[in-house]
C-alpha cells in the first residue's frame, strides 16, 4: 500500500518511466522463465520425489524383508510404479501447457 502511494505520488513523467521499466522487467522475466518451463521443472521434481520414495520402499522390502512375501511385494510395486510413471509422463506430454497459462 505504501509503495503504491509512493509511486502514485511521483510526477507524471517519472510515473510513465516506472511503468515502462515495469513492462520491460515483466517481459524479460517472462522470456527468461516462461511458465511452461516452470511447470516442466515442477513435474520433474514430482517424478524425482516419487522415485526417491519408491527406491526407499524397494530398498526396505528387498534388504530387510524376510521370506517370499516382501520379494513379491517389491516386484509388484516396481512393476506398478513403472506403469504409473509411464502413464503420468505420457499424459504430461499430451498436456497443452500454453492453454493453462492465464493471459
Amino acid at each position, binding site marked *: 500500500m505504501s509503495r503504491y502511494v509512493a509511486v502514485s505520488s511521483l510526477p507524471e513523467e517519472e510515473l510513465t518511466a516506472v511503468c515502462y521499466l515495469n513492462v520491460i522487467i515483466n517481459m524479460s522475466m517472462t522470456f527468461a522463465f516462461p511458465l511452461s518451463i516452470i511447470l516442466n521443472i515442477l513435474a520433474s521434481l514430482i517424478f524425482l520425489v516419487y522415485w526417491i520414495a*519408491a527406491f526407499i*520402499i524397494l530398498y*526396505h522390502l528387498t534388504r530387510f524383508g524376510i521370506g517370499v512375501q516382501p520379494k513379491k511385494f517389491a516386484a509388484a510395486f516396481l512393476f506398478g510404479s513403472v506403469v504409473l510413471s509411464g502413464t503420468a509422463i505420457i499424459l504430461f506430454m499430451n498436456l497443452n501447457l500454453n492453454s493453462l497459462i492465464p493471459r
Partner: protein
Amino acid sequence: MIKRLLSIFRDSPNSFEGQEKEERVVLLLRQHPFTILVSLTFFGLAGLVPIVVGVIFWSYLSVHGWLHLYLFVSSIWFSGLWLAIFHSLTMYTLNTVIITDRRVIDSDQHGLFNRKISELHSHRIQDVSVHTNGIIETFLRFGDVTVQTAGSEKQFVFHQIPQPDRVKNVIMQMARSRDSGVKTVVQ
C-alpha cells in the same frame, strides 16, 4: 537361469541378518492380514475419488478443455496412492516375529527409519500366554501372544498373530527341547 531367478518368489530359507551358523527358522510370523485390510480399504476408497470426480464433472471438463489436465492430475493421485499402499504393506511385512530353534526375534517396524529389534533366548522363556479379544479375533483366529521372560525386558508381546495357540505350543516346545536337547518339530 530364469527359472532360478523366479524361484526367489516361490521358496525361501527365511534367512535373516545376524542368523547364527546352523540356526534353523522354525516359524516366521506376521500380523494377521485383517490388520492391514482397514488401511487398504481406506486407500481403495481414496482411489475412487478421481473416478467419482470424473463421472460428475466429465462434461464440464471436456467443455473447458481440461480433460488432459484432469487425467494427468488423476495419474499423480494414483501414483501417490500406490506409494501409500506399499508404504503400509512394507510396514506390515517388516513387522515380523522369527522363532528359531535357539531364540525368538521380534522386529517392530514403526516407520521406514524407525525399527526396534528384541531378542529372547529360549532358556529365558518362563511362560507363554495367549489373549484373543473380540468377535473378529475369535472368528478369524488371531490374537496376542505374551512371553514372560527372565530377562531385563519382563515380557514380550506379539500382537495380532494368526493361530496364537499353535505359536504358543511351538514356543513352549522350543523352550522344553532346549532343556532336553530334542529338536523342535513344527506340524
